[in-house]
């Protein structure tokens, strides 16, 4: 918000001026604030109010099917949450999913970005078409990949069988470990283009001269990649990682659509747990506590990244 007020911020540093001008400046500042008010109100209504209401709810016993029993219960919901092995299990699984899918997306996204950064015929077309998966709604891509991974009828089974590869005729969704493969593949397929796009933008800011002079100094391709491309790409990399890590950490739709957390609870993630408490248990008090804890965990993750950005001086 503050960035929308450069005039107001700068004003404070100025030496005091004669009365009339000051009053005009004050009026201008008032106009500035007035113009920001609608945005603040909107933010308050859609972000601050729900957050505060959620905070209040989380200290209550509030189960929708038990009307009239709402009572303030202090930290009871949080205590129950901290000792729920199901939540801790889901948290570990969520972190595992986040680590694997973000790592794969980063590697694939970087590869894609490097390729489409080269100049070749039809580059525009390729650049546009790699974005297509990203434009597909998550629920749709999850359904698509669910169908692809069906035993016998699915495309993956067909491909593995005809290529003579191991893994044909597997019932992917009936194995606690294998069920993650379709989930991760679907997530990677959809989100790699996003990573590639951000990294491509980063690549385009690296001056060509650096590579030319490196070449003159006899650097090999991998040396200039390691010494020039990667260090200069770091801000873009961190931005892509922040976005992807947070949204992978909060993953819900892929899991909900593909496995419903199954088989058993082996693909259950924290957002699914949260949804379950809200919409199946109808326990809004407990659900609110879970939501708040998830928000704090996500903020902590974001803080780690922001700290890295700051200490490296990449954030200006």
């Amino acid at each position, binding site marked *: 918000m503050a960035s929308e007020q450069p005039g107001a911020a700068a004003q404070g540093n100025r030496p005091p001026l004669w009365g009339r001008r000051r009053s005009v400046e004050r009026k201008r500042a008032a106009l500035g604030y007035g113009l920001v008010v609608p945005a603040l109100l909107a933010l308050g209504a859609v972000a601050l109010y729900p957050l505060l209401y959620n905070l209040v709810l989380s200290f209550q016993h509030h189960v*929708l099917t038990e009307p009239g029993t709402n009572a303030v219960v202090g930290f009871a919901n949080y205590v129950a949450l901290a000792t729920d092995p199901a939540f801790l299990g889901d948290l570990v699984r969520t972190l595992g999913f986040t680590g694997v899918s973000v790592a794969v997306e980063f590697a694939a996204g970087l590869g894609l970005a490097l390729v489409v950064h080269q100049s070749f015929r039809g580059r525009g077309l390729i650049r546009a078409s790699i974005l297509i998966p990203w434009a597909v709604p998550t629920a749709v891509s999850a359904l698509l990949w669910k169908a692809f991974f*069906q*035993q016998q009828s699915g495309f993956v089974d067909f491909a593995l069988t005809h290529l003579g590869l191991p893994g044909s005729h597997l019932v992917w969704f009936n194995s606690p470990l294998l069920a993650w493969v379709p989930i991760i593949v679907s997530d990677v397929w959809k989100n790699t283009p996003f990573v590639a796009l951000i990294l491509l933008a980063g690549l385009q800011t690296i001056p060509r001269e650096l590579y030319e002079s490196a070449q003159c100094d006899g650097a090999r391709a991998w040396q200039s990649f390691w010494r020039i491309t990667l260090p200069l790409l770091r801000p873009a990399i961190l931005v892509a990682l922040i976005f992807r890590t947070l949204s992978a950490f909060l993953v819900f739709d892929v899991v909900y659509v593909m496995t*419903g957390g199954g088989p058993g609870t*082996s693909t259950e993630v924290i957002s699914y747990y949260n949804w379950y408490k809200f*919409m199946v248990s109808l326990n809004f008090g407990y659900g609110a506590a879970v939501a708040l804890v998830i928000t704090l965990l996500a903020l902590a993750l974001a803080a780690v990244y922001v700290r890295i950005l700051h200490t490296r001086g990449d954030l200006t």
Partner: protein
Amino acid sequence: MFTRAQDSKPRAPRWRRLMAMVGVAAFTATLAACGSTPSSTGSKTVTIVFATQGLGAEAKATQAAIKGFEKLHPHIHVTTNTLSASSNTAYQSLVTDFGSNAPTPDVITADVIWPAAFASAGWIMPLNRFHPSLSSFFPGMVKAGQYHGQLYAMPWFINVEGLYYRTDLVKTPPKTFTQLVKEAKSAMGHGRIGLAFEGNKYEGAVTVFQDVSGGFGGQFLNAQGKPVLNSPQNIAALTWLDNAIKSGLSPAAVTGWEEGNVQDAFLSGKAVFATNWPYLFPLAEQKGSAVKGKIGFAPPPAQPGGRSTASLGGDMLVINKNTRYPKQSWELVNYLTSATTMVQRALISGDPPARQDAYTGSLLKQAPWFAQEEKVYVDATPRPVTPLYPRISARIQTALSAVYSGQLTPRQALNQAQTQVQAIISGK
């Protein structure tokens, strides 16, 4: 800089005034929209909102019924509000409406497993005060609509999960599960599936398990409402289902199957037996069906000591506690649940009537399969009628899925589910 500021000085307030006016206008419009509700006066036409599921033929049947109702009651206008076809989504949107004490929808179509939860939350009104006559309805349906001795939901159409079999491969429907295995094995070959059933982690797996559990003499909750999920009968039942997959009677793929997949397997002629709902029958009898004239529908088998159990599904009609028009809402419910309207619906959409006196000669002549289905309806067993059912079911779904995927033995999974359901019921 200075001059520009002066220039903008007179303009700014005007602009702000305009903004304020627009804002106020928008706000007033919103308020007006919220407040414009019809007042309830005797002879004036009132509008009631009917929230119901169903697309295509079902929507057509509903519209036909509403037309007939409005003709009979010119002072009541009915608008429909189509709920999501997905039961879970529809439930969640209704919970949101009820939770905010909204007076509409007035009349709501409720899945047979919802009325208890709605009643315990105080969202729907008891219907006893309208003195409904219940003697013609299937008893299982009536039971599903009662909570704490009061009637909260009127049965609209019934649905039961039965056993489909191929009359060209199996002479008579199996009476026991042992018999089913034997008959399926002798008819398998030619790439056929012995038993196609719903094994995905969702509600449909629970109804299949209830069918088998009852057949082995098991229950989910006993007569006192205490969970008995890990009873020897239930362990035997789940072991039987697990063995069906392990022994190849059912392909491993059933662990991801829902009704649609079972339907595909059975209609393509690939399955000897299949667990599914009545809607499949007319599809199998359609022109061009690979199994036309070759199928039968029977109550699920039972082992000695068990009882043939066909899980009850279907839809009920409930009335919003906060409706402004209780009398008019009841008129609609009463009309929709009359034998005549039910027959009309059965002929348009194939939804089986929830009352026995609707199975008239003319209905059976036009839709002969209802004769076989009716026999299964009598055995219809509701799932536990408790507001906690959705949570109990979720635990059973997890247990079944953990067994089918080989993570837990039937005993381990049911012990775990028992502990969890005990905690749910004791309010932890």
